[in-house]
């Protein structure tokens, strides 16, 4: 297995890419989509272990940071959902030119799962998606983020924190250190996976028992399957600490189930 960290320019923006290349490739490439906010930090080890395990199976794994997040260029307040979409085709081109894959699978976690699904719509060559704990309803996610923020400030007795920020004369809402523009908030408000128009895709969802949105996930499956345009499978994984615990937890059960699923398919 060979790992390479590199910075590449896509659409005039500096992107950080961590690629895992197997010694003997099965010519399939898996692209990871990160979650946002502090959820990114919490899944770092899980992502890393899962990427290495997939690489041992022969898959080339590409992990990248969106512009304005992680190690990629840009200020944190410069993150923009529209940029994720506009630059995705450049990323796909780069991957095709570098690795010449026969198939591409998108692997998204939390908000990354939603971004993976939305991006796959414009890429008909992408047939398979693996989504871990996807956020079905953006409005509800935003509400949860705001509640979590309030609870955090109350528990820590932090007062007079500004809800709204003005950065370079633009208004932002502060999510515990991550400023979100009003355009991004509007996008999240409207985002609902059940309404997405995915055609001819095979979607596999891994749902742990740490987040109580089971009904929403089942509803999403039903809605997509009514359209008969794509198939959705849900795998329930007993990994209660995946999202509930504050710091590094053992996620090997989840990684193992993902590996078993991929090797059997």
């Amino acid at each position, binding site marked *: 297995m060979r790992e390479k960290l590199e910075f590449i320019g896509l659409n005039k923006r500096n992107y950080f890419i961590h690629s895992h290349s197997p010694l003997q490739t099965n010519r399939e490439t898996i692209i990871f989509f990160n979650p946002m906010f502090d959820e990114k*930090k919490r899944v770092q080890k899980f992502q890393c272990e899962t990427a290495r395990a997939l690489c041992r199976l022969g898959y080339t794994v590409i992990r990248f940071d969106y512009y304005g997040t992680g190690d990629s260029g840009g200020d944190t307040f410069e993150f923009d959902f529209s940029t994720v979409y506009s630059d995705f085709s450049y990323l796909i081109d780069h991957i095709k030119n570098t690795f010449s894959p026969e198939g591409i699978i998108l692997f998204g976690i939390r908000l990354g799962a939603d971004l993976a699904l939305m991006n796959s719509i414009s890429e008909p060559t992408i047939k398979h998606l693996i989504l871990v704990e996807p956020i079905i309803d953006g409005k509800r996610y935003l509400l949860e983020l705001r509640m979590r923020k309030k609870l955090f400030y109350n528990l820590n007795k*932090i007062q007079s924190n500004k809800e709204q920020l003005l950065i370079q004369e633009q208004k932002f809402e502060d999510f515990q250190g991550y400023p979100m523009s009003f355009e991004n908030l509007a996008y999240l408000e409207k985002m609902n996976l059940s309404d997405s128009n995915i055609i001819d895709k095979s979607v596999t969802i891994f749902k742990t028992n740490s987040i109580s949105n089971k009904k929403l996930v089942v509803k999403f499956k039903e809605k997509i399957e009514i359209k008969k345009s794509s198939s959705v499978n849900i795998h329930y994984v007993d990994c209660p600490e995946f999202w509930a615990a504050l710091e590094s937890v053992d996620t090997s059960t989840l990684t193992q189930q993902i590996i078993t699923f991929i090797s059997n398919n």
Partner: protein
Amino acid sequence: MEALSKPIVIEDEEVCLYGIFRGVKDPKTVIVFIPALTGTRIGPQRMFVEIANHLNKENIGSICFDFPYAGDSIDKTHTNPLYLRDYYNFHLSKVCDFLLQEYPRSEIIFISISIGCMPILEFSEKNKLNKVILLSPNHLSKNKTIVNKHNIYAYFIKLFQFNTWRKLFFLKLNFGRIVSNVFYIKSKEKKNRNEENNHLITCGKVDLLCIFGENDPELMENQKFWKHNNIQGRFNNYDEYIVPNSDHSYMGWNSKEELLTKISNWLN
């Protein structure tokens, strides 16, 4: 001069450490970001990247490393992270060897957060690096494990978590561990306080910047420890700053901005 970002890989038969360099070629100063035990190379709320980008504008280079316990790096020897000093010293020595080889003319300044602070300070002292920046520094006990976790507070937070009640319902809560965390460590901490104060191995050569969060539940205890060591003459120069309306991880954009300004001013 244009700032560049380039990945750094330190690889030998024992480790493979990943880092990102940001800055100009042959920088006068290189700030080395070392994560807390459960942290990654971007730091809480991408703080390390933001500080690094800001310092670039002042021609200060930086390297953000991650360590194996929570990051992408690999420890082939499987050093036990519970023995924090050994864990950090092992990886810091690899980082230091690399820095001396790659940046022999640059001034090296380590910066870390929380539980990573004491190991980097002691390592800097031993390796004649004269400036260190500590963010929300904790302190370690003589038996080299974490002692000053405010377990009661952590358990209070856990009360609001669904998983706690789930575990209670299925009788999976480890009551023995909770009792020992709350009572045993607390009493042991009091007993060893004097020993701990004397345990900081520095001899007055390091210029230190300590930054705390005003609402950090461990503020009083940690501030007392570091001030006491300053009075004892264990540092060459000691600067302390408290970020108002901020917790242990400086959550919030304004706290991060304040932190950034303070670090930048101190370095200049």
